[in-house]
């Protein structure tokens, strides 16, 4: 039982990271029906911005995270403008292939500029402490990851539900033409969606740096794909689905590592994708029926 609870603790913090990345996938899909395969790489850029903020500017971890979020928000907007917007009215496969192109571009431009070697996230920025709670070991980095991820998700929920911009995002994703007739600028709304999604990914990147302590230019690939599976699991396009999907994936991964073998954890993650696509392609929260009248 203790072992099980320990795995839950580990899974929740990992799941929080996946959930943050999955949110960006699902928001972008919700609004322009594009699987933005460069999303995991935006997360990687965020991790590097955090790294340099700490090592070169000497900031603390919170400032590093905010800097990463800000810069990646701009990067996300730029990617949409340069790569996806010109293809808005072309086939979806064209945009998808472009997304893979952007992904490779970000990965290898980072390799060229910063080198392929992995870097160690400075311990001094986040000295690890362990707490003991009824036999459970809880690390302060786990608390940090979980609390800041949940906080960001609450802020996102507030933006989407309560602010004018958030409502416009929902309107555009529900019916683009009707939204235009309200005077909503579709271009602006899509830019905001990329900015928010990319900022969340950047935060996740810094968290991964803190959590695993190493970063490298290809670090976005596997977490990005797993977050994509999480978004599909919850129902692509649905924000609560991405959150739940992220936590499910995180818990599943730690359980597989804890009770089976960590060799299988990636296979299980992608096995989930195959199973969900076979039996419930709309995801846990997706509706199979058409729109209600």
């Amino acid at each position, binding site marked *: 039982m203790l072992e099980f609870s320990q795995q839950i603790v580990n899974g929740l913090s990992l799941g929080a990271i996946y959930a943050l990345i999955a949110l960006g996938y699902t928001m972008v899909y919700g609004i322009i029906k594009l699987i933005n395969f460069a999303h995991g790489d935006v997360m990687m850029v965020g991790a590097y911005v955090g790294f340099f903020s700490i090592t070169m500017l000497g900031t603390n971890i919170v400032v590093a995270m905010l800097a990463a979020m800000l810069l990646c928000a701009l990067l996300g907007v730029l990617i949409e403008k340069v790569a996806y917007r010109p293809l808005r009215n072309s086939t979806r496969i064209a945009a998808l292939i472009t997304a893979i192109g952007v992904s490779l571009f970000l990965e290898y431009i980072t390799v060229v500029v910063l080198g392929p070697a992995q870097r160690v996230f400075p311990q001094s920025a986040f000295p690890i402490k362990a707490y003991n709670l009824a036999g459970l070991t809880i690390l302060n980095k786990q608390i940090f990851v979980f609390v800041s991820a949940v906080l960001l998700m609450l802020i996102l929920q507030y933006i989407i539900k309560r602010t004018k911009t958030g409502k416009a995002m929902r309107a555009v994703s529900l*019916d683009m033409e*009707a*939204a*235009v*007739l*309200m*005077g909503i600028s579709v271009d602006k709304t899509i830019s905001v969606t990329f900015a928010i999604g990319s900022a969340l990914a950047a935060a996740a990147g810094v968290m991964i740096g803190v959590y695993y302590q190493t970063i490298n230019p290809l670090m976005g690939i596997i977490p990005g794909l797993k977050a994509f599976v999480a978004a599909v699991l919850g129902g692509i396009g649905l924000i609560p689905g991405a959150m739940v999907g992220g936590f499910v994936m995180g818990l599943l991964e730690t359980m597989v590592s804890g009770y089976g073998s960590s060799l299988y954890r990636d296979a299980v993650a992608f096995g989930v994708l195959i199973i969900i696509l076979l039996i419930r392609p709309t995801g846990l929260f997706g509706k199979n029926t058409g729109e209600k009248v």
Partner: protein
Amino acid sequence: MLAVKEIDVYYGAIHALKKFSLDVEEGSIVTLIGANGAGKTTVLKTISGILRPTTGSVMFKGQDLVKVPPEKIVALGISQVPEGRRVFQTMSVLENLEMGAYLRSDKKEIQKDLENIFLRFPRLKERRKQSAGTLSGGEQQMLAIGRALMAQPELLLMDEPSMGLAPLLVKEIFEIIKDINSRGTTVLLVEQNANMALTIADQAYVIETGEIVLQGAAEELMRSEEVKKAYLGG
């Protein structure tokens, strides 16, 4: 107020509007009637800036709308109740109405307009927290009208507001349109229900395959043999 002048609009290879012209005078109700696929919706989409004409002009209060982005057209005072209502299904009734006022920032005025719309449509007030998709067809139509009014339009474009509604509701909707007009909003009404549309309109146009075939005062058109035969059931 609005002068559509000799516009040509294409849907891919389809020539949807051919040298189409139409005038709307301030304060009036103008109706555009015609069969399914005649190009009625295309006219409204072109005025709203969703479709663009290859030739011709769309003058509104002395400004050509042809190059104005759609969100600016709303700001100029034209809003549309689209065909099939197109309410935001999973958003609440209140949120739908707020979206209608998207370009406005005068909070007090918005609140006042909201109260007026709830006064006009009490059922929307009762259901303001429900998601729009759970409303009946008639209620969704009222919501779509209320949403368009929240933009404080000078010209209201309505695309088949009677579509799919029971006869009693159709009558109610037309009463509402008359009332909206009597309070100073100009209305351009596209309809297949020619009978009802001609009853409330001042001016009328008949469109067939992208071209105006008849136009005149609504009363006259109602008496015209051609219109009777083709659109009024004998």
